[in-house]
């Protein structure tokens, strides 16, 4: 079937017109921005009074708004945003989006899903320079979530854990420090720099409770307590917990990273040589000791 496209019409019209050349190109239409006067005399009075520094200043000072209360005075203080630039940020990723990524073959469920797998879709990103400490798996699209996955996220809620475990999957919350996030978000770029894979640091004081909590499936929690909490959550939400031990994908679902590990199968301290396609492992005692504890 061939439909006459708008492009075909335009190209057919172009056939009847003179040859497009250097001399007959129209200019790209642009909008002329209104410009306030600046400079020594262009700005005139800057909207201020007729005398003194207001009239004679060559450039209006920072935050100056003529005839108005300046913005920085007008906006009241909002203390609930205080120190927001120091807090850990977790960009959201909803369950519906995760299902869409799986359905369109952006993420494979044959491998454990972690931060690197989500970043490799090139649709979602973390920016460690803006203190993003990983993804927060949110409940949006919880009703349509049907995938069976082994997923590792950095923050989540109880309902999401229930949704993942109901489908027979497993979920872990694990902490990545900013230095590890730099390596995990774009591993190839990290390997290309020739730096060794860093070791993952333990969570800070205010986060250690979350990541050792078996209810939140923390990666530092006791596995036996996690198994117990899985059963408790299933009874709370009223679903039958699928048995992982009898699952054919058992190995995949129970795959976990070491608390010091960033990539599956690769240990901290190793250097990846992308050209020779090999791994360089250190043999020095001091290095081995540093990366092992």
């Amino acid at each position, binding site marked *: 079937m061939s439909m006459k496209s708008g492009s075909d019409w335009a190209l057919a019209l172009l056939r009847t017109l003179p040859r497009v050349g250097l001399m007959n190109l129209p200019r790209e239409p642009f909008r002329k921005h209104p410009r306030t006067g600046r400079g020594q005399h262009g700005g005139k009075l800057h909207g201020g009074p007729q005398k003194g520094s207001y009239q004679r200043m060559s450039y209006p000072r920072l935050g100056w708004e003529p005839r108005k209360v300046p913005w920085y005075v007008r906006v009241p203080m909002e203390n609930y945003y205080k120190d927001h630039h120091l807090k850990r940020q977790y960009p959201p990723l909803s369950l519906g989006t995760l299902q869409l990524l799986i359905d369109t073959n952006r993420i494979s469920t044959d491998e454990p899903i972690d931060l690197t797998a989500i970043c490799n879709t090139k649709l979602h990103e973390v920016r460690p320079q803006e203190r993003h400490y990983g993804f927060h798996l949110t409940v949006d699209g919880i009703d349509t979530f049907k995938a069976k996955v082994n997923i590792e996220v950095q923050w989540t809620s109880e309902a999401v854990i229930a949704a993942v475990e109901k489908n027979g999957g497993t979920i872990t919350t694990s902490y990545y420090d900013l230095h590890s996030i730099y390596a995990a978000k774009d591993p190839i770029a990290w390997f290309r720099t020739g730096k060794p894979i860093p070791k993952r640091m333990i969570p800070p004081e205010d986060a250690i409770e979350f990541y050792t909590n078996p209810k939140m499936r923390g990666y530092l929690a006791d596995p036996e307590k996690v198994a117990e909490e899985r059963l408790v959550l299933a009874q709370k939400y009223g679903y039958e917990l699928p048995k992982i031990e009898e699952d054919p994908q058992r190995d995949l679902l129970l795959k976990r990273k070491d608390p010091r590990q960033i990539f599956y199968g690769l240990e901290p301290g190793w250097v990846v040589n992308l*050209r020779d396609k090999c791994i360089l492992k250190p043999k020095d005692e001091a290095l081995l000791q540093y990366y092992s504890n």
Partner: protein
Amino acid sequence: MLQNIARKSFKFRPVVCFKNSPQCSILPGCGNTEVCPPHARNYSAYFKSRVEESPDKYTEYEKSFEEWKFVEKLIPPTHVPEPPRDPTLKLPSGWYKANPPKDCSYNIRRTKNHMIPVYCQIMARGDVRFTHIRRVEGNIWQLEKDIGQWLQDRYPLKTMNTRTHEICRQVIIKGDLVDDVKEWVTAQGF
């Protein structure tokens, strides 16, 4: 004469390897298939980096080729992955393979990421909203008429303002009607 001196001094420069040789950033088989152009490199980092010293100054290491398979899993694909091809396949997320009607005089083409190109444009702090249908092919005026009529029937008390942008091949509807338009587009099978 000066050129000769410069060439000689360049030749006997005490540098082990030239870091700005283009091979430094080649990596076949992963996302960046091109050689990194000079302007895309961070030169401040380059000049600060230390020159390579003799091997006896470094600690020992061993080479291993077995773990390369784990690195291969970390390499992103070059092209956008192919989604499922069956248009009748029902997926939990509601995504479906585009299956437009055969006798339709227009088509709404999916984006590079296989999504429906309907977007909301927000202007003036949310007071002005437009719905854009992008990537329209074919008879754009027919599409404008059809979607306008359908929306008018759905919201009889509202006045539906639609227009076409022929150069960018868009149909623009006043108001935030993304969900309604997506519902219509899905029902048509685009």
